[in-house]
């Protein structure tokens, strides 16, 4: 059994890993763990990763979670083009600097709108509008810092070429876009950056990776969206409770 990637393209870090593997022609078996169908808490997935998180990489007996760790592992093992994870000490440090800040200020923040507008209602839960308001403020602040500190005058976030930072950032930013908040509007610098990253990844790959998330509102409207089974609810409710 070769490399396996356990993913759900609904999730931002899953998309980052998927896109990276595809773009770099890394051969892998895609194992979809359908979040909406409650497969994250299934017995089968528990055997793969008893800590019930995706994305997960399985390379023989070696099991690895955390998208950043997976991306770095793949870039080193498959010796992807240097621009993704530059070898120059300062540029590499800048990638890590971005990823550290991303963990605190982007991750956990940009996924909230999907929870509020789609995932919570699906299980009959609610995210108070006040919290949605706070979240919007947090996103706006983070976007300002993203533009000012990490993008600046550069074509990409920390260097003149695409790095892991751009991929992780873009996938998070696409999440609220998919649920109706076009955060690129009124932010021409960021919009231009997004266009550049998309162009680099290629329209076909971009489309493929984003079709699931970009169709989510339509699925809600048509009621063709899967309703998470009861066993998925406790984990989902815990996540909803953590929204401040």
């Amino acid at each position, binding site marked *: 059994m070769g490399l396996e990637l356990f993913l759900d393209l609904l999730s931002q870090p899953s998309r980052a890993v998927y896109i990276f593997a595809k773009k770099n022609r890394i051969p892998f078996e895609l194992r979809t763990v359908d979040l909406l169908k409650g497969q994250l808490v299934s017995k089968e997935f528990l055997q793969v990763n008893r800590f019930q998180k995706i994305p997960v990489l399985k390379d023989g007996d070696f099991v690895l979670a955390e*998208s950043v760790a997976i991306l770095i592992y793949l870039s080193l093992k498959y010796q992807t083009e240097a621009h993704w994870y530059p070898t120059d*000490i300062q540029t590499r440090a800048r990638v*890590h600097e971005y*990823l*550290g*800040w991303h*963990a605190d200020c982007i*991750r956990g923040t940009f996924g909230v709108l999907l929870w509020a507008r789609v995932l919570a209602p699906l299980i009959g839960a609610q995210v108070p509008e006040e919290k949605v308001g706070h979240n919007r403020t947090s996103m706006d602040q983070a976007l300002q*810092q993203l533009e000012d500190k990490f993008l600046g005058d550069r074509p990409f976030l920390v260097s003149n070429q695409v790095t892991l930072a751009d991929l992780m950032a873009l996938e998070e930013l696409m999440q609220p876009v998919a649920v109706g908040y076009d955060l690129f509007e009124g932010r021409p610098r960021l919009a231009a950056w997004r266009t550049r990253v998309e162009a680099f990844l290629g329209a076909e790959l971009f489309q493929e990776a984003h079709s699931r998330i970009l169709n989510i509102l339509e699925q809600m409207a048509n009621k063709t969206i899967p309703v998470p089974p009861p066993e998925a609810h406790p984990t989902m409710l815990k996540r909803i409770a953590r929204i401040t």
Partner: protein
Amino acid sequence: MGLELYMDLLSAPCRAVYIFARKNSIPFDFQFVDLLKGHHHSKEYIEINPLRKLPSLKDGKFILSESVAILSYLCRKYSAPSHWYPPDLHTRARVDEFMAWQHTAIQLPMNKILWIKLLIPMITGEEVSAEKTEKILEEVKINLQLFEEKFLQDRMFITGDHVSLADLVALVEMMQPMGGNYNVFLSSPKLAEWRMRVELTLGSGLFWEAHDRLVKLADWDCSTLDPGVKERICEFLQKYK
């Protein structure tokens, strides 16, 4: 001007950087940025790091923030012994995995305990509800169990027989509640043993020197707190109510 590290040892990420630099005899100038006096919001510091976070590193013209980035940079630039960030692909990935996980799983909740147990009552005069306190303590308990089961297992250190950046970062963060007299290591003998092992490997003298300001935090006279800083803190605390 050689390497400068901008830090306040009240912050766990600062302690990780401080201990690593001292342990590896990396020469640096300690630039103290007093969090309690709000100096991270000063004009001077904002020029170094407009995000106003600690720690920051300044190496000539190169300025870098984020402790994980700083630790990797120092490791590489000063050729620290390889056990700190092992070259083996799988072992390195385990360190990266921990470093990614710890932001929300360890650092954040450990800091919350310090706020709940000490700083909020001290600064605002109000206690945080028992319900909220219990929720955070429960979250910490679960994450520490996860830490033991997934990252530590039956090993001496996270990567095996030698200390790495992962142990250093894990430990300084788990020490944070000590500032509020809350000892998370009491919950598990295995965790306590690992804690002692890491402390001894780093050197008890260095370890406790790095934690001195934290363990004395309860003695801080917060009436000296700058009103602007106090206001900012109270705003930030709204989410704990």
